[in-house]
């Protein structure tokens, strides 16, 4: 009976389809379709369930991502520290070792850094910086305060939180040190600034409105390269060498990220 009714409907529709064109046309042309409506949807169990499943799948994906992404980040840093320390050295230990080194007036070129710091693996991070200087939270806080002072609290030079600093690609807790001389630290705080001036800072200590800057940090104070040169902290040769390292760092086919 049900099949017969279906067939009736089908045939009925077919019959209506054979109504002469002029009859259809004359009526259809009288219609002013300001807006069309859609037929009242008949709610069935399938429709909400379908949406329900979609929402559930979406929620599951988001949950997985929220778990996996930070986990991946922490694992990457952990492996980096683990392999880099070659044993029991912690991040802070590496940091203090680098700061308290007795080697004075040592210039860290690309080659010398790679040979002298073999324990600082770069495999777990995305770049191969000249020198991976691990910054502890305390150091980060000190440097942040110094940076604010250096920039006169200019809002254009907002600082990052330590978590942000540790999170962003590519440095993930490192800064690229070009030179270390006593307690003088010269490093690149490169930021990926697009051609349009949009900041997409990648792993920098601070957000910088311009790229290609080299910063000098000494006695918890920041100096520009010019200030360091004028105050005698860096000589002309060192400035020249820094420029070369910096250039290579930034432009040599992303050799250093």
């Amino acid at each position: 009976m049900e099949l017969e009714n279906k067939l009736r409907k089908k045939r009925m529709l077919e019959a209506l389809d054979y109504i002469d064109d002029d009859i259809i046309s004359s009526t259809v042309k009288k219609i002013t379709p300001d807006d069309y409506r859609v037929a009242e949807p008949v709610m069935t169990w399938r429709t909400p369930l379908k949406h329900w499943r979609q929402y559930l799948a979406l929620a599951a994906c988001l949950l997985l991502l929220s778990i996996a992404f930070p986990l991946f980040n922490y694992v990457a840093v952990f492996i980096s520290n683990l392999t880099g320390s070659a044993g029991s050295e912690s991040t802070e230990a590496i940091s203090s070792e680098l700061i308290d080194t007795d080697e004075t007036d040592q210039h860290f070129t690309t080659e010398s850094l790679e040979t002298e710091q073999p324990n600082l693996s770069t495999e777990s991070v995305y770049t191969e910086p000249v020198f991976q200087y691990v910054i502890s939270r305390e150091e980060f806080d000190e440097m942040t305060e110094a940076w604010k002072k250096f920039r006169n609290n200019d809002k254009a030079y907002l600082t990052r939180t330590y978590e942000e600093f540790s999170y962003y690609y590519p440095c993930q807790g490192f800064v690229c040190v070009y030179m270390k001389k006593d307690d003088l630290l010269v490093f690149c705080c490169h930021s990926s600034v697009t051609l349009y001036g949009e900041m997409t800072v990648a792993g920098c200590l601070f957000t910088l409105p311009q790229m290609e800057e080299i910063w000098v940090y000494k006695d918890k104070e920041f100096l520009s390269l010019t200030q360091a040169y004028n105050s005698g902290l860096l000589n002309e040769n060192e400035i020249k060498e820094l420029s070369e390292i910096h250039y290579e760092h930034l432009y040599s086919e992303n050799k250093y990220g």
Partner: protein
Amino acid sequence: MDDRRIIELFFARDERAISETEKKYGALCRYIAGNVLASREDVEECVSDVMLALWNAIPPKDPEDFCAYLSKTVRNRAYEISRSANAWKRGGNVTVVGEEFMSTLDDGTDLASDFEAKRMGKVISDLLRRVGEANKDIFVMRYWLGMSHAQIVQQTGYSEGKIKMSLKRTREKLAEALRKEGFTKWSSKTN
């Protein structure tokens, strides 16, 4: 643009034929499809399908009445989509209208073997030419376009009571005409 000019564009394989058709009849196509389909996505899919179908069919097809040809194509495609996606449940109004029209027929009629759609279409056409312009419009709007009473009121300006009465009388006349034409087991039973 004139319908004949649009058809010429189709024959010239000029893609403006589609845009001109959309421009002139897009809203109508959506209106017709919207009476059958339950979602705007389906309506848009239907209209897109129809435009492609027109492009493929013309030429060689050269419809004398482009508006009617387009309307029928839209209607048929809308029903195809409706059927393919759990048809009768989704297009609620279609079910109501279909059942109402089906009431014209006797339950005992053996449609599977005796129904001749084309011949019945001719009977319906002949009847509609006799019932007057207003009754014809109301019938086509209700049963061909699947419009609700409210929509017909809006389009014609007639009261809902007049529309229902018109439909009832036309159905009665149709049942009588079909019986006279020899459709077996036909009755004049109407609701």
